[in-house]
């Protein structure tokens, strides 16, 4: 026990003396949450719009006013001819151009039909889909108001209800993602680097010759990163609840349990990486390539797994973050209980046991 305590204390010295690293580790979750929360949002806001109106009339004016009044759009420019449309996009003056037909109000009154063309900059297809959808809605609602009391025998009015996230806040989706990424990054990458550093500096040799049992070495190595991960977990949760206003719909206790399990998987993964590599750079590259990129791209954090090609969907099953993120969404956002995440718990437990068994075996082999 004394051995273990001396060793754990040493590990804390290592971490606390490396000021840059500890600062990065503690600030990373905060920066990520702020970045994802405020900068990298997929919500549409203040999209710049230009309008082409051949003849201004009562209806076009009102319609443009209404679009401008919504928080999604800013009408920045009124252009006179279709030649200017190209130029508007080329100079990035607007993301969307509304082209009204000639004699808009007159046609609407006499023929009962008039056209508006929406020309969108689809460089970012997601954004283009969103804002054309919003502008169509505004036009539809204006039309609804115009019809007003007029009788319409057949009318189907869809009423959309957004469950779990009624205001469609992006944070609801990325908070679980950031949790999944930060925890695996800190646990796996830092643990593997910490162990490999001992190999590189030659101190591992001294430890192996000493009566220190390998399991103690491992425990002592992972303890500080476990503590750090818990701090990061709390930071992210506090920030998301109080700054981003993402409530914890389910039980906090269940969330903690699944997170501990996930941290354990990540630590085991770091251990495994450390037994496979001989240099800190290699450990970092493997963690970076093998963990970061799949976690970001294939865990469902950014792109929905359902939309991926089948081989990638199958591959995503081996990524621990996928199961964790799914469990966090179920508990934190949907507010479901323990029984809803049994599958995720089982998969993560299985991964944890497998990884621990393999890396302990590998670690022993090195003693020979």
């Amino acid at each position, binding site marked *: 026990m004394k*051995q273990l305590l*001396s060793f754990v204390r040493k590990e804390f*010295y*290592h971490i606390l*003396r490396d000021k840059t690293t500890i600062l990065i580790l503690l600030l990373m979750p905060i920066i990520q949450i702020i970045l994802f929360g405020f900068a990298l949002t997929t919500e549409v806001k203040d999209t710049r719009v230009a309008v082409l109106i051949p003849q201004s009339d009562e209806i076009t004016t009102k319609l443009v006013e209404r679009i401008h009044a919504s928080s999604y759009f800013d009408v920045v420019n009124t252009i006179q001819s279709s030649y200017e449309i190209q130029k508007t996009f080329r100079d990035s003056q607007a993301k969307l151009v509304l082209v009204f037909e000639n004699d808009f109000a007159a046609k609407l009154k006499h023929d009962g039909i008039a056209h508006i063309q929406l020309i969108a900059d689809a460089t970012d297809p997601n954004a283009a889909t969103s804002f054309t959808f919003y502008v169509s809605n505004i036009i539809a609602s204006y039309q609804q108001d115009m019809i007003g009391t007029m009788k319409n025998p057949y009318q189907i009015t869809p009423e959309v209800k957004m469950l779990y996230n009624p205001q469609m806040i992006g944070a609801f989706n990325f908070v679980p993602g950031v949790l999944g990424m930060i925890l695996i990054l800190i646990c796996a990458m830092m643990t593997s680097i910490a162990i490999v550093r001992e190999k590189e*500096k030659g101190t591992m*040799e*001294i430890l192996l010759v*000493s009566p220190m049992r390998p399991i103690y070495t491992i425990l002592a190595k992972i303890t500080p990163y476990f503590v750090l991960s818990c701090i990061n977990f709390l930071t992210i949760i506090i920030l998301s609840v109080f700054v981003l206003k993402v409530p914890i719909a389910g039980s906090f206790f269940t969330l903690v349990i699944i997170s501990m399990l996930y941290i354990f998987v990540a630590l085991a993964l770091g251990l495994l990486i450390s037994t496979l590599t001989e240099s800190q750079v290699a450990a970092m590259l493997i963690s970076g390539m093998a963990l970061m990129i799949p976690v970001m791209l294939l865990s469902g954090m950014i792109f929905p797994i359902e939309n991926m090609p089948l081989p990638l969907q199958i591959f995503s099953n081996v990524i621990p973050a996928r199961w964790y993120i799914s469990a966090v969404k179920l508990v934190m956002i949907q507010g479901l209980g323990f029984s809803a995440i049994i599958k995720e718990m089982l998969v993560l437990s299985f991964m944890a046991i497998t990884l621990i068994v393999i890396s302990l075996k590998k670690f022993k082999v090195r003693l*020979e």
Partner: protein
Amino acid sequence: MDNVITATNLTKQFGHFTAVDQISFEVERGEIFGFLGANGAGKTTAMRMLCGLSKPTSGIGTVAGFDIHTQTEKVKKNIGYMSQKFSLYDDLKVWENIELFGGIYGMNDQDIKVKTDKLMYELNFEKERNMLVASLPLGFKQKLAFSVAIFHQPQVVFLDEPTGGVDPVTRRMFWEMIYKAAENGITVFVTTHYMDEAEYCNRVSIMVDGRIEALDSPKNLKAHYSAKNMDEVFQKLARKSQRKE
């Protein structure tokens, strides 16, 4: 005879390659035993077997009275080890390194404190006590690494090329520390490339291609091979090597 290390037909094979081929020798308590050999002669492998890091393929060995096959944990408790990198933790202070290794070898806090004070005084290290190891000159690190290796009063200390990259004056001072440790009853098992250092040993073994080709006091070896110094003895023996490095 009080033998601290015994090896009988100790052999280590890696696949078809026999790194250490049936070596047999004894080391007495308090002896300074030089373990020489060219690179790749099997020195390190032999030493790793004695330290309990590597299981012998065949043969018998005991260190500090414990079997190196079955009692590796006990062997490890009773030996000290210093590598050629003087491996200490750079980002730990001098006293923290000592405290850590004291703790790993199961010493209690009181013992560690008393012995640390004594050691700092003896090494004249009182100023450096609170400094990070990274900021120490190489000679200081070497002294400290040796002191840490024998801090828990092991029966044997294994030194793997302990003077690499250090100037002759510092080397000489280091050997004085080795003598002092031997006087205190610690057996010293040392590998080296410097033939002048071989002269300081009580007895020397020279390994060639996994076998011990010669084992005696430097004086007898020089007489036997009619050589002026140990360097000549070594050259004569090492030239027989068939192994490529």
